[in-house]
């Protein structure tokens, strides 16, 4: 599958998950997908459908065994600062302050100290955490933790942003604020974003293209384009938006029911 102009090309990718005890599970099954530069793509599916596994393969955290993933034509061999990641449970270094967390990637990049501090401060300000630089993650609310994690990842200026249900652990209000904020950050400095979620409305609101995944083993069931004016305050109540959510929800519902049935616990 050769796609001209695509930045990320996933070709016939499968992944087997082998738990230490028990049978191997096919988590990702024959997925092919191309993502263009500066595209905002959502991976949508029921929990346990392998969408996070797909993201971890993109991140290079899990080894690619069957099929291939290339970024700018080069196969992925491991994690790297060209692909920043934001996890659902923040994954902040709990022993580092907000400032030290945001500075970490800059330090690894070998920036001079004063440069690190300046850049870290800029991103802390960007996500609205001015005044909390010296706080430890344990002293922050969930939303603040996720802002820190986003600042930490944006600070190293990755070309690709991988987000693994980043707002899934937040309460409803914080979540909707963070969604708007993410969009405004993305509009200011567009990056390729791959956004994993199981929330249909979130996917429709944020992404320009939505890849709907089936229940395990995870396959791409449909790819749906969306285009809404996201600055419209009444967007969530508008007919086209609601229709789109309904359309996709119908696709996901069947898979969610299937996923419930196969859940082992």
């Amino acid at each position, binding site marked *: 599958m050769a796609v001209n102009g695509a930045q990320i090309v996933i070709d016939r990718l499968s992944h087997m998950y082998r738990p230490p005890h028990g049978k191997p599970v096919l988590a990702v099954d024959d997925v092919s997908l191309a993502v263009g530069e500066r595209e905002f793509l959502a991976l949508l599916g029921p929990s346990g459908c392998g969408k996070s596994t797909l993201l971890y393969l993109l991140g290079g*955290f899990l080894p690619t065994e069957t099929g291939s993933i290339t970024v700018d034509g080069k196969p992925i061999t491991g*994690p790297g600062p060209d*692909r920043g990641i934001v996890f659902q*449970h923040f994954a902040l270094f709990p022993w580092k302050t907000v400032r030290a967390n945001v500075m970490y990637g800059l330090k690894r990049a070998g920036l001079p100290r004063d440069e690190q501090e300046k850049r870290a401060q800029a991103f802390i300000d960007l996500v609205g955490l001015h005044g909390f630089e010296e706080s430890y993650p344990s002293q922050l609310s969930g939303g603040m933790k996720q802002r820190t994690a986003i600042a930490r990842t944006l600070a190293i200026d990755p070309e690709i942003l991988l987000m693994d249900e980043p707002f899934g652990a937040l309460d409803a209000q914080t979540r909707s604020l963070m969604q708007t904020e993410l969009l405004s950050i993305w509009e200011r400095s567009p990056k390729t974003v791959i956004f994993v979620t199981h929330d249909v409305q979130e996917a429709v609101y944020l992404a320009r293209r939505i890849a709907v995944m089936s229940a395990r083993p995870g396959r791409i069931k449909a790819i749906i384009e969306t285009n809404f004016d996201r600055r419209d305050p009444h967007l969530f109540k508008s007919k086209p938006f609601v229709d789109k959510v309904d359309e996709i929800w119908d696709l996901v519902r069947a898979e969610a029911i299937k996923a419930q049935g196969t859940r082992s616990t």
Partner: protein
Amino acid sequence: MTAALSGVAFRYLPIVILAVLWQMASEFGWVSTAVLPPLSSVFEAGWGLITSDDFWVNAGASLYRGGVGLLLAIVIGAALGIGMAWWRPVRALLSPIVEIFYPLPKSALIPVTALWLGFGDASKILLIFLGCMLPVTIGAFNGARGSERTLVWSARSLGAGRLRTLWDVVVPSAMPELLNGVRTALALSWVLLVASELIVARAGLGYLIGFMGDGGNYDGMFAVVLFVALLGFIADRLYQMAMQRALRWRE
């Protein structure tokens, strides 16, 4: 201020009551002073001791042995534990050996180390090193194994190499359990030190306790025992304070 002070006084009042009972017991002849010397004469003997060079020579010997042995145990024990968590071959090789030796009652090592290295400093250092290493190893291992994979992944995707990640993520993640293991090792080191000095030694605080007891100097013996108890208590409190400081990021 005064409220806080009286709170502390009320809290430690039982200790004062025990001390007063002790003094009264020998004062009023409830028990023979040969069996329980009055607290006041124990304090007198203690003052005599801490103004003598002899005492500090013995205390120095004990602290040197305990310090070196414990330091070796912490450094090597932590390295082994983290190595076991990070490299599978190291784990496969060492975990059965650790599992066999961990439940070994450490005091059984006293005659062995005496057999190998005699009755001096070297045998005590080896004893404390061998006896205290495994609690540190186990703490470090459990802590390092428990480090979250998303933290490791975050460091890797922020540009850290494998060794860098080991140092920046796995070691700090292991710290809470590692430091708990060290606390166990600290307590164990006192037991092994004092006991081995009581059993086979020519210097040290444990030796001094036995020496005074054999010589019938019970005032002095009680004083050294209380001194050792106090040292152990202070060492633990200082360690706890240092540990809390080192782990202040956990709320």
